[in-house]
């Protein structure tokens, strides 16, 4: 009897196993990770125009920014964001910080304001882009500040989501946070698979 049972059990397990479905990766955000990053062209703080499709061949980081958001402050006041910008600029990564705050809304910047902002924040970014109509923000479904995106040299969006795993405005949390975004970028540069290509971002809402 026991023998029969051991004969049947693998069958039952295998049967159960066949029901366990694996879901093919399929995203529902505006731009699913793994698909082509939509092209855009925006003016920068330096008066130049930046077109995403011109940057093919390089890794591109998009960072949504609102200087008055406490979560953005957490990453800028202590120099955490600047350190990331410096580190990856040295690795030939194009770092685009995007401001999608509408005129009159919190954190809105014009070209002059953005230029001053880059200087006072000592930001080591390639450019701060101005998206006052929120078109690029909506295109990428940017929800929070900060909200991080990584585009690979082939022009594919490979990561979108949080900068780290501590949804707090408290700077003390930086030390113990797991740097999800930096890990993803390191993996992408090393040609390895990114652990989680889409995570839940945290922060203030983008002020469209």
């Amino acid at each position: 009897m026991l023998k029969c049972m051991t004969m049947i059990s693998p069958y039952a397990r295998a049967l159960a196993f066949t029901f366990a479905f694996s879901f093919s990766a399929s995203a529902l955000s505006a731009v699913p990770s793994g698909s082509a990053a939509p092209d855009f062209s925006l003016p920068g703080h330096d008066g130049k125009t930046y077109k995403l499709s011109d940057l093919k061949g390089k890794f591109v980081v998009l960072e949504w920014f609102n200087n008055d958001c406490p979560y953005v402050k957490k990453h800028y006041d202590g120099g955490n964001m600047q350190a990331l910008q410096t580190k990856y600029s040295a690795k030939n990564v194009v770092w685009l910080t995007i401001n999608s705050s509408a005129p009159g809304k919190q954190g809105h910047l014009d070209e002059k304001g953005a230029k001053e902002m880059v200087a006072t924040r000592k930001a080591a970014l390639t450019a701060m882009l101005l998206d006052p109509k929120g078109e690029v923000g909506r295109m990428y479904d940017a929800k929070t500040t900060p909200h991080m995106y990584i585009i690979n040299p082939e022009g594919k969006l490979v990561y979108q989501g949080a900068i780290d795993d501590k949804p707090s405005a408290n700077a003390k949390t930086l030390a113990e946070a797991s740097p999800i975004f930096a890990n993803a970028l390191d993996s992408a540069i090393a040609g390895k698979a990114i652990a989680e290509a889409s995570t839940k971002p945290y922060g203030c809402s983008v002020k469209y």
Partner: protein
Amino acid sequence: MAAAFRALALLFLLHQLIFAVDTFAFSEHPHSRARWIASHQSLHGERPTYLALHLKLDPEWHSYWENPGDSGAAPILEIKAPEGVVVSKSLYPLPKRIEVPPLMTFGYEDEVMYLFEARLDPDYKGKETVSLELNAEWLVCKVECIPAYGTFALTLRTDGPHTVSADEQAIQAVRKQLPGSAVDQELSVQAVAEGEKIRLDLKSPPALEYLDFFPASASHLSNVKPELLSAKAGETSIRLALERPPLQNRLQGLLVYTDGGQRSSIALDVPLSSPLAPQEDFAWAKMLAFAFLGGFLLNLMPCVFPIISIKLLSILQHAHDSRKLLRQHCLAYVLGVVSSFLAIALFLILLRQGGEAVGWGFQLQSLPFLISLSFLFMLLAFNFLGVYEINLPLGKRTAGLLGKGGAIGQFFTGMLSTVVASPCTAPFMGVAMGTAFSQPIPLILLVFTALGLGLSAPYILFMVWPGMLRFLPKPGIWMESLRQFMAFPLLATCLWLLWIVGQVAGQDALVLTLACLLVSGLGLWIKWRLQYSRLALAIIALALAANLRLLSQVATANSSSVAGDRTKLSAIPWETFSQERLKAELNQGKAVFIDFTADWCITCKVNERLTFRSAAVAEFIARHEILMLKADWTRRDPEITAILSEYQRIGVPLYLFWAPGSGRANVLPEVLTPDIFMDELGRSLKP
């Protein structure tokens, strides 16, 4: 120096005291005021004391739920409590949607209390007063967001009466907004993955009116309001969109409803099932192949093998002359088996569609069925032994049936084989059947067809290649010996059924059943020896009827006492499962394991013997302080059926484990060894 230090300490103590009293007033923060309060002036070992971070928000400002939605942040609340004080995770009252187009958030306006449930350890040996400290960060937003920070302390007594505080009523009012459980509200939920969306089918008492669904953060679901597919009284279907992949294997969130007046919620945490997508053809084929294989293996079961092998031999013996006849009879038999499997499948589908909570193996929870089967097996065994002959088409001397009308006889033999096979099929097939029943109806029917074909595979073989007859030994006296020998596996099955009768209904019922079997044996002898067929039949029928009648009385009298004893048998301190107990223990952050078992479930019994009697496992359980609960499904129990169906099982075994503080159960494989058990639990226990 020492004196100065002492003075400082005293000053600090004084400050603490004043601070403790002060905490009941609100402290000021940007756009919010906060205080840290308790429902009672003391902590208690059994009765909970509720702690609350009470926020009052400026008009138009809001704070957030556990899932803040597209932006914002849940409060970060860290409690420092002395040893011996057990505090739950934060409990969130029902939030509302706060839309900031194009974004959707969940939170609270005006006022909110984030609650905690606190208790003393039963063997608390600490101080008479304890200080519970809260380190809090909460975000308040209008359009712009401002984080607030606060450190609070609350002093509570640990002795004396459990006296309510001034805030008790306000806290109790908030407690009423905490989500309820699906079981309490008699809600049944099915979550089905449909490509990149999830369909949620809700069945509830008609008075509950669906309002909304708020996904938990862990679900990866879109925060926009779900699409309402259909809504009629008691039945609602909604469709949820995925926010970011991958789709999780469980669906968690809050179901918001109204029962006429109050807006309330139910916390859902259900596994996701998948209908078959077109690309799953291979899985279909594999599943059917396994079903066929499983059906074939059933031929080797002690209650099936004797009947089927004897039957097959008898057909073959009489069909030596005519291959056409042989084919016809085999085909009839195969059809009989397959159609009865389909009938069973349809019966179960209908019952389940009608909301009846049955599983495969349910028939073994029924006393009349058990007793009738044990009678049947005894009669068959007597027949095999040659005590009597009946004209059922089971014996070798039923040559007449192979003539005219024989095919119909074979058809019914096929059906009978399925019925007598069921005590052996049920315990083994339970798990696989459970999985099959989460599939669409056509597939369930296909799986059962494949099972039937598997069970009748030997016949199919002879049907297709009658030439194989050559390889069988010539009929002879050995067949008579084999037939007699086969009576013993049948009697063993009978013994096993009687053991279940004893477990289900107690010792008196068992003896009563045995007595009736004895009388029936006498009846058989009367027929065989004295040739009074009618008298014999009457005696057997009377015995069976009397048995069932008397049993219904004995069984009810015994049922409660039997259940009480059965958890005490092994070295592991098993306790009896109840939904309430489970909830209470989980709220206290205990590690909990549940063994869903039944006496008629052989897989369960083998697991219990191999795993739960192992000293290493007992030691492991003691070391990790795991509460072991046993849910016994030997008799029907709606509470257990409810939780089984929550995990998409229609039968046992099922093993669930909750690591301390984890809201989700880890489902263990249904075949356990000490290593599998300890590995699985060890993995969940690691942070």
